[in-house]
């Protein structure tokens, strides 16, 4: 079942499917990926007054694309009932030292799932 804020009541059968299978936010759009695995990227510096899934501590930080999860609807716009804006989601690896400074174990990394619109090329 895909996300469509329709304002129409679901049937009992639809509710049962939703409870059993959950909700898929994956999109069938063929939107091209802006990045590929092993690309270095920077999380954008932004402070929108509206909804975003990009955490503050990652903004402006550099990381590496480890995996392309495929195309999903964009929560930052769906949360405002705007365009679903389907785009690629990637697992981005950030070194702990990049996020928290020099006083961190060198082998610690943090992985964030971020969207095309959260990222810029370096």
């Amino acid at each position, binding site marked *: 079942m895909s996300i469509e804020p329709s304002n129409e009541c679901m049937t009992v059968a639809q509710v049962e499917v*939703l409870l059993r299978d959950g909700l898929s936010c994956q999109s069938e759009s063929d939107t091209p990926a802006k990045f590929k695995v092993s690309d270095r990227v920077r999380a954008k510096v932004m402070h929108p007054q509206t909804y975003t899934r990009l955490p503050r501590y990652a903004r402006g930080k550099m990381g590496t694309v480890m995996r392309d999860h495929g195309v999903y609807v964009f929560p930052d716009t769906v949360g405002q009932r705007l365009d679903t804006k389907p785009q690629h989601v990637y697992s981005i690896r950030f070194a702990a030292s990049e996020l928290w400074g020099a006083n961190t174990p060198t082998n610690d990394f943090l992985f964030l799932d971020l969207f095309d619109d959260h990222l810029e090329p370096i």
Partner: protein
Amino acid sequence: MNGPHDMGGMHNMGSIPIEEHEPVFHSEWEAKVFAISFATFANYFPVDETRQASELMPPGQYLSSRYYERWLYALELLMTKHNLVTQAEIEDRIAQMAQTDP
């Protein structure tokens, strides 16, 4: 929005309490909030709109509220915003219940 939900890297918030036999719901009202919220997901409000609504809770209130209190805040905010019920109707019902169920 730079709200109270975005807590990564904050200090002095205390440890995360881990209950040994954690129940799904700690009281009946939590189950009701969950059920009503779920009835609105996909039907009226996308999950992300619900998340955004709970993040609009004033920061002091957000940080001192229980998990399902935040859900309830989001639910009431969206139900009134989208004209499914009015704030006056919610308050009338609260007053009514306070009288019949002291």
